[in-house]
Every structure is written in C-alpha cells, then in structure tokens.
C-alpha cells in the first residue's frame, strides 16, 4: 500500500515538474484544420496555421509589410527580371538542406494540376537557377506586385516530397491519396508533432530554426471548437489561451472576465451588396420587362437608403468600419479621399421618383447566413431600411454552400440583389478590380465575383493598365480613378469592414495581424 502511494506521489511530482518547464499554448478556431498540404486550400486560416511550420521566400511582419523570408533579399534587375538571393544554412525539419532546387520544385508543384495556389505567380513566369542560392524569375510583362502573395507560397523540400510521393498537390481522387496529406515538413519555427483533422493538432518548437526566436513556447495545441457557446466558455474556464472568432454578442462577456480579454481590430475583408445591372429583365422582382438597376439613380437610391451607422451600432455592436470602397483603407490609404454617399432617405425617395419608381417595387434579396459576421442580420436591417423607399424585400438567407452555388458563377448568377465579402489575396487593389468590379459575361468569364454584373469599359481599361504599371504614384492615381468610377456609378454598394475578434487569455501576448492569421511564433505566455 505504501509503495503504491509513493508511486502516485512520485508520478504526480514528475508531471508537475515537466509541466512547470514546458510552456504550452492552446488555441481554438471554429473551423477544422484539414489536409496539411498548403497548396490544396487557399484559405486564410489554413495558410496561417501552416505559416508557423512552413515558410515562403518572403514573409510579412506584424503590420503586413513584406520582409525577407527564405530569400535574404531580392532586386528587380530589369522590369521583367527579378533576382532572389536565398538564405544559406537553412534546414528543413527533416534535416534536408534548403537550396534553389527546392524553390524550383515548389514552383512546379504550385502549378500542378490540383493546386489551388496557381494564381500566386503569373502563368508565363519562368524560373532560372543562377546558382544554388540565387534564382531569377523572368516575367512576360512587368508586374510590380509579383511577390505580394509569396509569403503564403510555402517552400517544400524537394527531397522529402520525392521520398514520400508528395510531388503533386493532393487531388480529390482516391487513386492518388497519400498519408502525407496529413504530414508536413517545412523550415518554420514549429514542427508538427501529430495531426488529427477536426480534432487536435500538436506543434513543437523547432530548436534549429534560422530566425530570431520571439516566442517562449515549447508546445502548441490546436483544437477545433465549433459551437460558439463552448468556444466562448473555453478561455473563461482557462482551458484555452486564444479563441477565434468571438461572436460579437459575447465580446462583452469575455471583456468582463478577469482571466481573458477581447482583442479587436479591423479586418481586411470588405462586405458589400451586389445589384444586378446586367440582365435586361430583373429576376425575382415585381418589375417586368425591364431592369430598374440599369438606372444609376435607382442604384444610388438604394445606397442612400442604407443607414450604415445603424448597421454598425445595432447589428455589429460597433465592431465594423463603414466603407466607401471595395477595399480596406489599410490596403489602399489614398482611398480615404472618397466619402460614402450620405445616408438620406429623402434624397433616396426623390431619386426613386425621378427614375419612375416612386411606388417602389418588390425584390428578393439573397444572403449567406454562415459566412460573414452577422451576415443574415445585416441583410434583415437592409431590408427594413429599403422599406422606407417603398422597396419590399423578401429575404432569402441560406447557408454558404447553397448561397454560393446559385448566386455565383456555377448558378449563372441567379440573384438580383446579394451580399458578398472580399479580401484581395494579394492585398492589392488590382485583385479587387479584376475579380469583383470588372465586367463579366453571363457565364462568369471575366470578373467572376461580380455577382451583379455591373460593367464599365473605362474601369476595365484602367484595371488593365494598373496590372503592368510599376510606378507607384501613377499606379495609385489610376486605382483611385477606378474606385471613383465605381463610387460615382454606384456599381456595387460597399457596406463595411468587419472587425476581427480574438478572445485571449490575459497571460498571453500575441500580435493580431489584420489578415487574421494566428502566428504563434510571436506569442509570449506567462
């Protein structure tokens, strides 16, 4: 009996001793971490997690500024030739030496059939190995933002990938399935110890990392917690150090707690409304034979009838920044010059009357209900506001899987009035002009995410020029001009940038980046 007790005490002591030494950071997200191959899903969260394990040629710092990553430096030798000098002495977690061959291999892999990251580099870009640690990228046309998304184009080890058979991005087919989709080998500050999709992922500190260590963690445990209430309870009970996201209605509750706090900041995603100015006859509306949205006055009336401040304070509980542009001011500062059309119901009524719709009309509005912060509630508010200009909205709020199916290109834009959110992957306005506000045809060729199909030739001409312009001042002037066209013509109705909200334990400090990546290599835990 005594020896049994002694054993218990001894093992308890052993547990206490190890836990006193090892610092474990636990965090939870509402979604799952699935396959670890970072080329199979172009999604902020997954890429963010993998950013702790793998690295690109460039990185972004706490303020999203591009800084050197696996490349020490780069220079533009001529407008169509970029030279990258690679870092020496970097090793992958598996012990493989990092060299130019890995970059060439990763480029091919990134362009492989099932890769979702193909847009990371222009299709006509060629890579030339100068020596083991120098690479030239040769472009078909000048591209000032070539490396803008390279911080999430993570470099694979050629040797490792060939050894495990991971030379291609994972496809959805059974025949090419490999267990390596659940493994990872990078150069980053953390290694992956174990990974169970949808359950738990354990990270360990990489003691051989090349960079300057800014965290004090030994282990990191990631779990999914899907249910809002449970996720909010986790930091309050001290079981988890960080949760993302905090539902807006629970922010106050976490804020009141003495163990945890809410970190908020503006997010990069912009929420906006699309109105169908493409079809000749408006669908799902009481107006027959014509499309009122072809008239800029009607579009503007809709804009001015929306009380954006009320949406901010009532629906978003202050956690939103009203926007006049389709891009966050953090990504395009000169845009501050453009101010929202003022909220003015009288003016809106007058515009409707001038356009011949004083009596208003009926219209269906389509919204996702599980995609953006309080998405369906925003749409409800908008519907109520539009009633004041006699537009009777029937709200059709659907789960995102359904919504994107019919409202997007797969459903041939089967919507007349819809909500959408957009974060430009490159953090650059050209991505917005190309995907969200450019012209498209009925099938979606062109700006695939312009659900309303608004089209302006001048805007598209500017977008083309912006792509190749490398002079920043000239480029910004053209971007501003394009945004002005969208604003004046009310091509789309921008609403706001929603806020990021992390629930963080008070014993942890971690920078919150506006792109919402959780990078724990900057975390300090007491």
């Amino acid at each position, binding site marked *: 009996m005594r020896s049994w007790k002694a054993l218990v005490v001894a093992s308890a002591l052993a547990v206490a001793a190890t836990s006193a030494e090892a610092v474990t950071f636990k965090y939870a997200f509402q979604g799952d971490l699935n396959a670890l191959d970072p080329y199979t899903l172009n999604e902020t969260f997954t890429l963010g997690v993998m950013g702790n394990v793998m690295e690109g040629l460039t990185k972004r710092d706490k303020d999203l500024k591009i800084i050197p990553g696996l490349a020490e430096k780069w220079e533009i030798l001529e407008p169509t030739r970029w030279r990258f000098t690679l870092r020496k002495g970097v090793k992958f977690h598996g012990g493989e030496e990092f060299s130019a061959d890995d970059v060439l291999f990763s480029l091919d892999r990134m362009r492989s059939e099932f890769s979702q990251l193909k847009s990371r580099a222009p299709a006509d870009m060629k890579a030339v190995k100068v020596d083991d640690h120098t690479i030239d990228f040769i472009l078909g046309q000048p591209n000032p933002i070539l490396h803008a998304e390279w911080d999430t184009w993570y470099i694979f080890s050629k040797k490792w990938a060939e050894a495990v058979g991971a030379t291609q991005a994972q496809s959805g087919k059974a025949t090419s399935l490999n267990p390596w989709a659940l493994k990872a080998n990078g150069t980053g500050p953390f290694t992956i110890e174990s990974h169970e999709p949808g359950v738990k992922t354990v990270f360990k500190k990489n003691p051989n990392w090349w960079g300057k260590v800014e965290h004090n963690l030994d282990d990191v445990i990631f779990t999914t917690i899907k249910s809002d209430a449970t996720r909010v*309870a986790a930091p309050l009970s001290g079981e988890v150090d960080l949760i993302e996201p905090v539902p807006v209605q629970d922010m106050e509750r976490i804020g009141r707690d003495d163990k945890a706090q809410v970190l908020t900041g503006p997010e990069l995603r912009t929420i906006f409304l699309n109105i169908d100015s493409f079809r000749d006859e408006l669908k799902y509306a009481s107006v027959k034979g014509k499309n009122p949205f072809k008239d800029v006055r009607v579009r503007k009336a809709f804009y001015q009838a929306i009380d954006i401040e009320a949406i901010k304070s009532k629906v978003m509980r202050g956690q939103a920044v009203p926007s006049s542009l389709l891009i966050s001011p953090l990504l395009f500062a000169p845009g501050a010059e453009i101010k929202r059309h003022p909220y003015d119901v009288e003016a809106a009524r007058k515009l409707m009357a001038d356009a011949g719709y004083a009596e208003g009309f009926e219209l269906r509005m389509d919204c996702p209900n599980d995609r953006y912060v309080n998405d369906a509630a925003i749409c409800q508010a908008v519907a109520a506001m539009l009633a004041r200009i006699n537009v009777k909205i029937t709200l059709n709020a659907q*789960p995102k899987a359904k919504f994107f199916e019919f409202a997007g290109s*797969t459903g041939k834009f089967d919507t007349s009035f819809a909500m959408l959110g957009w974060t430009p992957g490159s953090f650059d306005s050209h991505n917005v002009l190309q995907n969200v506000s450019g012209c498209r045809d009925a099938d979606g060729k062109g700006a695939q995410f312009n659900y309303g199909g608004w089209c302006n030739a001048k805007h598209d001409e500017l977008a083309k020029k912006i792509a190749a312009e490398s002079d920043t001042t000239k480029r910004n002037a053209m971007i501003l001009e394009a945004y002005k066209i969208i604003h004046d013509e009310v091509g789309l109705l921008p609403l706001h940038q929603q806020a990021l909200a992390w629930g963080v334990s008070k014993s942890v400090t971690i920078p919150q980046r506006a792109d919402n990546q959780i990078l724990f290599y900057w975390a300090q835990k007491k």
Partner: protein
Amino acid sequence: MLAFAIRRLIEAAFVMLTVALLSFVLFRFVGDPINQIVSQDASLEERIRLREDLGLNDPIPVQFGRFVWKAMNLDFGVSYQVKQPVITILMDRFPATLELAFAAALFAIAIGIPMGVYTGIHRHSMLSKWFLSISLIGISLPTFLIGILLIYVFAVKLGWLPSYGRGETVKIGFWKTGLLTWSGLKALILPAITLGLFQMTLITRLVRSEMLEVLRTDYIKFARARGLSNRAVYFGHALKNTLVPVVTIIGLQVGAIIAFAIITETVFQWPGMGLLFIKSVQTADIPVMSAYLLLVAFMFVVINFIVDLLYVAIDPRIRLAGSGAGH
C-alpha cells in the same frame, strides 16, 4: 425462426437501399461542394474541370448506381475536405461516438431505474416529487441548452470539468479510447449526462408507471400475504416484471442515442461522427454525409433486428401467438 430472420434481412436490405436513395436525392440540394474546395480566385475553367473530375456532371442515375456499387464494396470515396478515404475518417471517429453513447446509456439506466423504482414505491414522498420535477426538466429542455448550462456551471464557474473535447486518448489497435485516462474520463462526464438525460427521464417515467401497475396486481398481494419482506416484493417480484418493456425501450433508444449525439457532440466538440456529419453538411462534403447516413441506417437496422429476435426469445407469449404484429 429462420424464415422470420430471412424476412427481416430482406426488409433490412430494402431499408438500406431506400436510405441510400433518399440521402442521394437530398444531396442534390445541399449546395455546391466545388466552391468549398477551390480558392476564391480559382478560374471558371478550373471549377468546371473539377466538377468533371469528381463526376458531378454525370446523370443522377449513373451517379447513384456508382455510389451503391461502391458502397457495397465498402468504398465510400474520398472526403472533399480532408482528402482521406471516408471509411478511414469514419472509423477514426466511430469509437468516440460509441463510447459517448455507451456512457450516456449507462448513466440513463443507472440513474433512471432506481429513480423510477423509488418514485413508484413512494408515490407521495417529497423526494419523489423532486425526482419527477427533475425528469420534467430533462424532457422539456433542449439538449444544447442543457449542455451549455452544464458547461457554464461545471467548467466556467466551478472549473471542475473540461468544457470541450475528449481529453487524452489511448490507442488500442484501431480503437482510440478515452476510458483509460483520467482526463478522458473527466471529459466524458458532461457530454454523457447531456446526452443521457432525456433517456434517463424516459426510463424513470416508464419504470415508475410499470411499477405502479405491477404493484396493484394479485401476485404482489399474494406475495405480501405470504409475509415476504418489502425488499423481496419490490425487487424480486415487482421490478423483475417491469423490466421486459424497459429492456425493449432501451434497446431501441441506443440507436436514437447515437443519432442524437450530433447535437451533444457539437456542443462539447466531441470528436465523433455526429460532429463530422454537421461539418460535412456545411461544406457539402457529400461522400462523408452519405456514408454517415448509411452507417446510422445500418446501425438502426441491426439494432431493430436484434431487438426483434430478443423479443421473440424473451416473451413466450409472442412465440405462442405465432408471427404477431411487429413494430
């Protein structure tokens, strides 16, 4: 008996096929899986090619035929999201759900039967009224609310039990169990109570009414007249006779517990099949959804089959009456 079993088996096959067809038709309406797989700026051509690749463009009867044929070979395809064979994922999640369902059933029986017996015997005592009020709560409150309430009290306020997850697990063969570690057992308590509360209530009420019924019968009166102790009368004679319907109900409820686990698993982030299913619905991960529904249907069919056989075996009256009405 053999004819009975064969007839049941044919019926079971028919049920499975119907479920497969229904689930398949339903999935036409869950939305577009492509949008959940590709990146937001994937080109139109890429999307179209992926549709072709996943066979989503084939006529529906062709897709259904392929699905049934593969399912018969235990091939449920590959999850669009996790990129692993569905059967591997389900087998990974199955132990978690089964352990939870088992613990919930155990809780329901261990608490439900004594409570039923007590309230049956001491009909007018204060404690009985308490028990009945508690069981009323179990019936009327929705599962997710009970779960959140328990989390709030035991995890946030008192800090005794974990609010989510399964704790540490130990792997025995392919079976990942949480029953062998302290943290695993602790993590099991709240979800098991949440899931089992409704069944517990059901059992309490059932046992109580059966007890009241049985205690009025003649053979109990004779037993008392023979001077048997209360204990022998209540437990030796009365309870034994109430148990036949209770066993039937419990058997049937096991299936329900596994199916209802979806909500409990979501609230407690219990990594079982129900949670997997909910997530698959959101991302339109059709292979996972169809395999899950088939599996649940299969379990219901098997349980029903066993209960049917047991029924015949336990109750001689059914055998004597020949093939009476089924359920």
